């Protein structure tokens, strides 16, 4: 089961464990604003093919706009 984290744990994972940061909102919303270092894989495009660009050895953090 995925682990819910807050911003402090996110910052730690990025700094200490080379975590990969993924914004899953549509491309236009990513272009509008995103966290530094994030890449964009919209939820509707998230599948085995698009996930090839991610390293399975490192943690993956996903986020969207808020809790909705």
């Amino acid at each position, binding site marked *: *089961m*995925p*682990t*819910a*984290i*807050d*911003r402090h*744990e*996110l910052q730690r*994972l990025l700094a200490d464990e080379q*975590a990969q940061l*993924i*914004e*899953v*909102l549509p491309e236009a919303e*990513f*272009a*509008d*604003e*995103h*966290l*530094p270092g994030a890449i964009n*894989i919209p*939820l509707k495009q*998230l*599948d*085995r093919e698009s*996930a090839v660009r*991610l390293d*399975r050895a*490192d*943690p*993956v*953090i*996903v*986020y*969207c*706009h*808020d*809790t*909705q």
Partner: protein
Amino acid sequence: MSPRAASRLESIGFERVYDYVAGKADWGSAGLPLEGVNGSETRAGTHLRADVPTCGLDDRLQTVCEQLEKSGWDTCFVVDDRRVVLGRLGRHVIRTKENVLAEEAMTPGPSTIRPSARLADVVERMRRQSLTNLPVTTSEGRLMGLLMRGDAERALERLSS
């Protein structure tokens, strides 16, 4: 949306999947940088003055006023030990220099904005409400600084040119 994305990644075979549930709304509200077309440069948090004076509830107004005269500021925020905004000492109160505590003189619960607020929206609000400045606080209520209307208007002009 992110919980579904996290579950999808696990179904694909990723073993260490984390969900930053509060998302970029939380990130921006904490005053952390955002990139993109409407990134940090277009937000209130980038253009504030962080050196706005603060004092504690138990500070004496006269002492605060003396310090303000030296600094050139005509306002001061009353904060707790975590910089959470409790009140504001405005120009009028500061002029009186009454022999009271800051807690007794302050206007409690001043209106604040988040650092992620869009500059264009803030300027529009300041003009509509005839505000010359607005305090910027994090989502936890901690004071980051004061956004001056003049600074905000100039930044907006630069961004649109």
